[in-house]
C-alpha cells in the first residue's frame, strides 16, 4: 500500500526537498496523475529501505518549481512530466521542450492527460 505519505503544499516543496537532501535521502521518482481540474503529484524519496512520499496537487495552469538544485537527477522525471502530462516546470536546467521521449512526429500531445488535451483542443486519443 501507499504508506508514509506527507501532504505538503506546492510552496513548501523546495524547502522540504532541501531538508531531505541534507538528510541523504535518494530521489526515486516523481509521479503525476490527472485528476479533475489538475494533477496529483507524488515525489518518491527513500533512505535505505524506507520510503517517504511527498504529495500535493496543482491546477492545470499552475507551475511547479524544479527540484534540480538539490537533486540534479530530477531532470529526468521532470522532463517526463512535461512530456506526458504537459505540466509546467519552472527553471528546468536541461529542457527538452516536450521532446524527451515523445517526438515531433507523435500524433498526440500529453498522452497521459487526455482531459487537458481535450480542453486545449489538440488531438485526443480514442477511448
Amino acid at each position, binding site marked *: 500500500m501507499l504508506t508514509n505519505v506527507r501532504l505538503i503544499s506546492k510552496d513548501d516543496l523546495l524547502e522540504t526537498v532541501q531538508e531531505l537532501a541534507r538528510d541523504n535521502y535518494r530521489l526515486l521518482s516523481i509521479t503525476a496523475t490527472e485528476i479533475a481540474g489538475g494533477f496529483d503529484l507524488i515525489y518518491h524519496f527513500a533512505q535505505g529501505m524506507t520510503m517517504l512520499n511527498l504529495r500535493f496537487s496543482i491546477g492545470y495552469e499552475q507551475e511547479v518549481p524544479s527540484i534540480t538544485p538539490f537533486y540534479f537527477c530530477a531532470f529526468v522525471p521532470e522532463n517526463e512530466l512535461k512530456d506526458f502530462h504537459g505540466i509546467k516546470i519552472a527553471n528546468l536546467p536541461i529542457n527538452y521542450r516536450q521532446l524527451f521521449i*515523445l517526438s515531433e512526429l507523435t*500524433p498526440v500531445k500529453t498522452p497521459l492527460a487526455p482531459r487537458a488535451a481535450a480542453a486545449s483542443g489538440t488531438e485526443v486519443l480514442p477511448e
Partner: protein
Amino acid sequence: MAWVSSARKRSPWLLHYETGGCNGCAIEFVAALTPLYDLERFGMLNTGNPKHADILVVTGCVNARSGRVLRNLYEQMSEPKVVVAVGVCACTGGIFHDGYNLAPGADKVVPVDLYLPNCAARPEAIIDALLTAADLLAETRRRDQHAHQRAPDQQG
C-alpha cells in the same frame, strides 16, 4: 562467373536494427550469432554499416522517431536488398498495435519481403528466415542479371 554468384548466394551480410518493442527478438537475434546456433557458419556476418549489408533485419515495433532512422538505413543499402521483419511487433505491432506512437508494422515504413511471427522469435526460426532471405536475394540477383542481359537485345 557462375561460381562467384553461387558463392555470394551463401554469404549475405546482415544489418540489424531494433526499432522499438521489448528487444526480446533483438536478443534472440544476437543469440543466433553465438556458438550454439552460430549464424556465421552460413557465411552471414552482422555488420554495422548499411552500405555493406544485403539483408536488413527489423525487430520491434516501429514508432514515430525510429521509423525515420529505419527509412534512412533502408535507403542507404545498395540493391538488391531484402528486408526481414522478425517478431510480431515488426509484423503488425503485436500487443502494442493500438499504441498512440506506433505504426502497425514495419511494412508501413519500408517494403518488407519476409515476415517471421512469434513472440519472441526463436533463434532457430531466425535462422530459417535468414536462409529463406538468402534464397530470395539470390533470386532477385538472378532476375536483375537476366534483365541486364536482355536489355541490349531488345534495343537492337
